């Protein structure tokens, strides 16, 4: 018996110790997992709260919007959207934003993607830095000379001037995203193409560019979002026929009052295309922005 007891003692105590340690590990994992979940939830809430507030306010009356006791439980109204669409200015400016955003993004990509390839492949670091100056200089400081020049050649108020000014911001953005992307592509592929008879530009066009499609898409989405939200250039350089959405939003703010409901309805409408662009471009955005991160 004593043997059984002696032998049995460790055999009983050992299994009890091991589950305790495992339980502790499981407990720690559960705690970390719980903490991680809470942190993610808090961060998501902080990011989403303004958007939730904006969407909720779009369906409230102005009395409800400015009354803090009215939270997310209220009788919704579509009146704000009806008013926002009533004068046609919102639709017109959305179209203008779309035209300027698409044109400036496409033209910027046409210029910046080959430039990024050249900077990446031919070690033109100084040229790349020079282009970056456009992002460093505050846009407001450029507006007076721009306005003067464009007014002299009769371009103020046209789509051309808006597209050109937005390109000034978009080209460096696309260029710098794409430089990293091209540097991450194996050079041997292009060398092989050159061996097979392609010119340098041909190897870019047929080999590097298709491989860089995710990066181009990511850069284009970011450039489009930047253009879509740009306020300052349209404020100064557009006229009543070419005003873009961010400026038109201010129609809801007057000297003595603000139509919060109308403003939030218009802001919701303005946000939808950006959210759609982000959702559809998400796959490319992640791939594009992380490309080159593991280079070397």
């Amino acid at each position, binding site marked *: 018996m004593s043997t059984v007891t002696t032998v049995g003692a460790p055999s009983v105590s050992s299994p009890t110790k091991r589950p305790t340690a495992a339980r502790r590990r499981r407990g720690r994992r559960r705690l970390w997992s719980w903490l991680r979940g809470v942190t993610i939830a808090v961060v998501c809430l902080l990011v989403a709260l303004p958007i939730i507030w904006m969407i909720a306010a779009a369906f409230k*009356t*102005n*009395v409800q919007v*400015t*009354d803090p006791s009215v939270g997310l439980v209220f009788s919704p109204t579509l009146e704000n959207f009806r008013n926002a669409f009533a004068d046609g200015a919102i639709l017109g400016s959305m179209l203008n934003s779309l035209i300027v955003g698409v044109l400036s993004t496409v033209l910027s990509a046409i210029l910046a993607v080959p430039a990024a390839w050249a900077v990446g*492949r*031919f*070690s033109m670091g100084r*040229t790349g830095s020079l282009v970056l100056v456009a992002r460093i200089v505050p846009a*407001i400081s450029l*507006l*007076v*000379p721009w*306005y*003067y*020049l464009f*007014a*002299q*050649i009769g371009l*103020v*108020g046209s789509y051309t001037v808006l597209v050109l000014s937005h390109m000034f911001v978009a080209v460096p953005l696309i260029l710098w995203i794409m430089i990293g992307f091209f540097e991450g592509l194996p*050079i041997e592929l292009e*060398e092989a193409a*050159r*061996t097979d008879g392609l010119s*340098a530009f041909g190897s870019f066009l047929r080999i590097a560019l298709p491989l860089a499609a995710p990066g181009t898409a990511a850069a284009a989405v970011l450039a489009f979002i930047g253009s879509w939200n740009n306020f300052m250039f349209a*404020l*100064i350089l557009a*006229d*009543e026929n070419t005003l873009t959405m961010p400026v038109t939003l*201010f*129609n809801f*703010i*007057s*000297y*003595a*009052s*603000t139509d919060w409901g109308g403003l939030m309805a218009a802001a919701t409408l303005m946000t939808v295309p950006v959210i759609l662009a982000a959702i559809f471009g998400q796959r490319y955005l992640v791939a594009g922005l992380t490309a080159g991160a593991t280079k070397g």
Partner: protein
Amino acid sequence: MTMPSSRPSSWRAHGTPAHVVSRRSFGALAAAAAGAATLSACSSGPRTADPNAPLRIMAINHVWSQAIAEYLPEFEEQIGRRVSMRLLTADQLSNSYNVKLNASATDIDVMMVRALQEQILFTRNGWLADLTDRVEGDAAYDWADFQEAPRERSITAGTVVSVPIVTERPALYYRRDLLEDFGGAPATLDEMLEISLELADRNNGFFGYVGRGQRSGAVTQWSSFLYSFGGDFTIDGESGIGTPEAIAAYEFYGRLLAETGPPGVTNMSLEQAMPIFAQGKAAFYIDADAIYSNFLDPGISTVIDTVGFAPFPAGPAGSVPHNIPSWSLGINRFSLLQDDAWEFIRWISGPEMVARLQAGGIPGARQSAWDDQATLTSFPEDLAESMRVNAENGKGTDRPDVIQVGRARDIVGRPLVAGITGASVPPVAADADSEFSDFLIRDNRQREF
């Protein structure tokens, strides 16, 4: 065929034929081309307006601008030219003027300006056309019909540079239902404070008094308190904000908001304070009479049936509110359509249109319109009376009369915030007084037209 080596740098050497323009040369050529284009554009000589160009008005998004939109076809028919009006917020309007007029823009003809905020600066910069001969040389226009205080504010450096179109005074907005037991609206500031203290139930979200508490934004409304305590922003060209009268006004306003006002009031300007009264959460609110319609709009207000309007209550020096031209019209000196721009101003600020607009609820600057009872029928009776009384007692400015008004408001507003936050006002006022004195010396030096 020479093949590229494995390193990209050798591609450049391989692929750059001798006859191709180098990057440096290309840059020089591009700069020369841009310079030539600029010079040719700049040297195009005197320009004339396109006969089909519209008359461009830049205006603030204001009830005045919205009201005149329906009358514009009449004017277009009169001058045979299309009118294009762009509406912006006050800050955007200011930014647009600063950028465009710095570049001598010709795509603005009529400018809506804040005579008290930016007229001196704009005149100093040479952006506003001289209207003296136009206003004084036209008997039918009757320049003398404009109220004296707004008319005086139209003159900078001896010349008329703007014409007042909208005037403002402070109104005391109060809850008639709550004031019945107190015998109606208070006649003095002390009475108002006493009632505010009695009615305030801050723990349950009801406030005695709500008003602007933001450092710069509150200065214009506080000016009526300052004047009614016997003070002024400047006295004989020197800072007046360190005087006993100014300190008393600072302390009174601070106590009113600190003890009976809502929390976070130092972050409140018109946009934040007005909704609190409109939602029935305060007994008193003093702000511009131009915003009265907000309290009568069922989409915004819950006090439509209970709001009352009264003249500014009297302080130790009586009731001395401001009576200012909040918005005026000027002509861009670079405009190619200055005659048409004047025709527009002459039409919209003429006796007939001012009376029509005032009858629609927009207080103008012409005495003839105020004398005509028919133009006051659109206002609630007690508001019309309050406007009349305040206009009679009013001073023509609500902020320091300087070039850099924004900076001056920041300095003047500092003791105001100290009073609201419960700090001792006299030392802060003394410090602000010293800073304001230095500021006035520098500002005066810049007043060279």
